[in-house]
């Protein structure tokens, strides 16, 4: 054993073994992320500086550095400066971002996020609070409950933070008067109750003087509850998620062939539950079924199961075609699937959220475009009124809306699963809002979706698998759905494409709607039941796809809504939508009417290859 006597440790006479033992114990200590929020100037930075100083959590250089800056700038040292490490901040005198700092108590280690109170910085407060497990909310005893006291309280609820302790700060400014404290507690408790939130406790403090922070206040003997440090230790860790039903959002599918690795790994972070080798799993919304063949990891012992919240990779026994954005679960407890849902959101965009506006939705790993179908109500935090007749949601407002997605999305409700019920909206390049799903709403395609689901789950397979067919044919089954007005040249493109793929050696079939009508739809000729014709066309196409074919489809009889129906019955993963002419909707490829068939067909083949549907063969 060698004694640690280096200057850097500053400690002599302790053995390295002691230190090692202590270090080992320390690494087992519990960690918790907490956030400190509240109105501007209600004392957040001061509280954090005080907490760090009183728990001796500053590295040696830091205090001196800040004191030196203060001395040079002729300012009196304040605890708040310790966090305001940036020049810009000290100039403005307000915290501008969620700085992360660390302190420890006897019970655990904390990462504390000093969220700012200035209204312009609500997005920073959210960034901080979104990764917190519990919150301290500060209210200035002298100023009382202000706009951001309410807004932050509401947003904490929206973000799913249920553990909130309210600190009534600057009690020294009101003569440590219990009546002031009681009045603020009553008022704020009532507000939180409206947001369906129950705070854990209220504590009267003076962050500047240290009352009830680390030490009990001598001036407020009337307060018998815990100090701030005791209160944070009373926060509880969230219940473990591994005992919930499985939710495994597919983040990516890897195949590192070039490095000689033949594994096809479905990677992601398990949001809830547990998955084991041999489990049958289903991917939503595609309804693909498979069985877990292995759990993959680098530099880790071989595992036969994995659980939340770990990032894992799995391989499957049947090589089904799944993509990022799908949600893997067990069969008996699946997520909801719909294109419509009711949600609660907070808007941060410079441009207001507009009724009818289109945004990109990101939910777990799924990304798709959504339209704001309804704005049901908007809450104004400054006066707590609810406005029900609005056509937009402005920056920093909180609203209840109905969103309509372009493609079906797999999701959960926030009471059951947090991670698969939360989403953000992207406006152009920026994350402009975030929210939680309150309710899934039925859409027009719900019956077809249910048909596809029960069909897929009960599908009887032969001994030749989809994978066998894909390997034989050198491509995945895919429906190339050509749409556009009559006379724009779809038929020519479809015929050229069929020939081109056939000449490559692909298993391809041109499925003309007319041919389905002539035979399969014979009994419908009199009634002209359009919906049933679309359904039958899609089911016929589905059989060809199950036989491993590339199906090229063209028909003028189908309208845009019918394409959505076809896509629902076949599964979005197996449809390539090519549109010719105007109003392309969300087609994957769009051509001008003037396009000539040869070039268009060639471009479709290139796209199929790029998206991984075709295996490139040597010419």
């Amino acid at each position, binding site marked *: 054993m060698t004694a640690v006597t280096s200057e850097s440790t500053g400690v002599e006479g302790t053995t390295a073994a002691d230190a090692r033992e202590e270090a080992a114990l320390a690494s087992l200590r519990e960690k918790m992320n907490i956030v400190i929020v509240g109105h501007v100037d209600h004392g957040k930075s001061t509280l954090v500086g005080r907490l760090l100083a009183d728990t001796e959590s500053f590295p040696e250089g*830091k205090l001196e550095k800040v004191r030196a800056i203060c001395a040079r700038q002729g300012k009196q040292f304040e605890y708040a400066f310790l966090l305001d490490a940036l020049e810009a901040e000290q100039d403005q005198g307000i915290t501008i971002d969620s700085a992360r700092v660390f302190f420890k108590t006897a019970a655990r280690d904390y990462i504390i996020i000093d969220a700012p109170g200035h209204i312009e910085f609500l997005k920073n407060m959210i960034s901080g609070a979104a990764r917190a497990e519990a919150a301290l909310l500060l209210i200035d005893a002298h100023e009382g409950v202000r706009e951001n006291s309410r807004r932050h309280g509401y947003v904490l609820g929206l973000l799913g933070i249920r553990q909130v302790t309210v600190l009534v700060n600057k009690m020294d400014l009101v003569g440590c008067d219990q009546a002031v404290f009681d009045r603020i507690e009553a008022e704020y408790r009532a507000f939180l109750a409206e947001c369906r939130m129950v705070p854990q406790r209220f504590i009267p403090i003076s962050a500047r003087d240290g009352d009830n922070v680390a030490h009990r206040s001598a001036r407020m003997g009337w307060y018998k509850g815990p100090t701030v440090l005791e209160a944070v230790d009373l926060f509880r860790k969230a219940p473990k998620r591994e005992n919930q039903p499985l939710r495994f959002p597919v983040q990516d599918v890897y195949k590192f062939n070039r490095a000689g690795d033949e594994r096809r790994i479905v990677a992601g972070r398990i949001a809830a539950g547990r998955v084991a080798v041999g489990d049958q799993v289903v991917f939503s919304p595609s309804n693909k079924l498979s069985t877990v063949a292995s759990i993959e990891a680098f530099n880790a012992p071989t595992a036969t199961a994995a659980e939340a919240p770990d990032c894992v990779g799995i391989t499957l026994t049947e090589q089904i075609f799944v993509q990022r954005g799908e949600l893997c679960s067990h069969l008996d407890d699946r997520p909801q699937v719909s294109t419509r849902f009711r949600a609660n959101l907070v808007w941060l965009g410079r441009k207001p959220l507009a009724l009818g506006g289109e945004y990109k939705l990101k939910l777990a790993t799924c990304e798709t475009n959504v339209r704001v179908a309804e704005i049901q109500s908007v809450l104004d935090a400054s006066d707590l009124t609810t406005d029900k007749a609005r056509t937009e949601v402005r920056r920093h407002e909180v609203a209840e809306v109905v969103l309509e997605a372009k493609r079906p999305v797999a999701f959960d409700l926030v009471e059951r699963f947090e991670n698969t019920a939360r989403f953000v909206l992207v406006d152009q390049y920026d*994350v402009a809002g975030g929210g939680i799903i309150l309710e899934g709403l039925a859409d027009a395609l719900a019956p077809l979706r249910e048909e596809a689901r029960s069909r897929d789950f009960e599908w009887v397979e032969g001994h030749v698998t989809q994978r066998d067919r894909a390997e034989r044919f050198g491509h995945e089954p895919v429906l190339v759905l050509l749409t556009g007005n009559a006379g724009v040249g779809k038929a020519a493109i479809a015929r050229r494409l069929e020939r081109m793929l056939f000449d490559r050696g692909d298993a391809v079939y041109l499925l003309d709607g007319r041919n389905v009508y002539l035979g399969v739809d014979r009994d419908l000729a009199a009634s002209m039941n359009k919906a049933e014709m679309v359904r039958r066309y899609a089911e016929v196409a589905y059989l060809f796809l199950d036989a491993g074919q590339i199906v090229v489809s063209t028909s003028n009889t189908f309208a845009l809504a019918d394409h959505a129906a076809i896509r629902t019955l076949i599964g979005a993963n197996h449809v390539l939508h090519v549109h010719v002419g105007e109003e392309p909707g969300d087609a994957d490829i769009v051509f001008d009417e003037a396009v000539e068939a040869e070039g268009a067909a060639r471009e479709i083949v290139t796209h199929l290859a790029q998206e991984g549907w075709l295996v490139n063969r040597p010419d």
Partner: protein
Amino acid sequence: MSDHLRELENQSVYILREAYKHFKSLCMLWSIGKDSTVMLWLARKAFFGHVPMPLVHIDTSYKIPSMISYRDDLARRWGLTMVVGQNRAALADGMNHTRGRLTCCSALKTEALRRTLDGTWPRLVMNAAGQYEEDPAPEPFTGVIVGARADEEGSRSKERYFSPRDKNNDWDVADQPPEFWNQFKTDFAPGTHVRVHPLLDWTEINIWEYIERENIPIIDLYFDRGEGTRYRSLGCEPCTGCIRSTATTPTDIIAELKRTTTAERAGRAQDQEDPHAMEKLRREGYM
């Protein structure tokens, strides 16, 4: 595995996979130091033993020589795509720290990095034979993975996991995008790029705990090699000092760090010249 290392590893792996999914032209900065080497290891975790993005190293020519041999050795063993950039003009002009440490850092690190990332200066790329040759057509990187930790320095504590930089590499600290849960900024305007920070939540001790747990082959400059000194932070030879320490293993270092009250970068001379040195460098694009 201790819960907090597991949490840190999970978050970093998730971020790396998000970056790989969203950025067509992605690279990872590798300074050879402990943090970015841990990050490189996390990439192997995320991609099941592979490192599917190139690693960029800025060679100031003043690095401690064993750093370069360690770099190339690991690159060959792990099959890394190694990219090296350098400010050739400034070096030809004799740039060194005696002209002012910040001036030197600005030229040899910040400027070299910026011009290497945007593809306007030559890049040396390691070929299959393990030799460096010039990349004939360097493309700008739109996603850059960086091993910054929030606890290192005040200005770093303000970072996001995904942090946009504009055309001039500027970082607008006051106007950063929100990060809800694990939804990051992955959409960006042409001409801008995004810095990705998978190690933001790690502390210096976490880094060593993870090195210990995973048995990561970290460069030996961090350990006492018999002289009673070691490096705590690695940089250029003239500007980086050793600390007195007899630590020879990650376990020793962890024990030592539990007792120290000295800041990690205390041995980095450029920080001492100006209290806002790091922030100034970072605004210009320093990592």
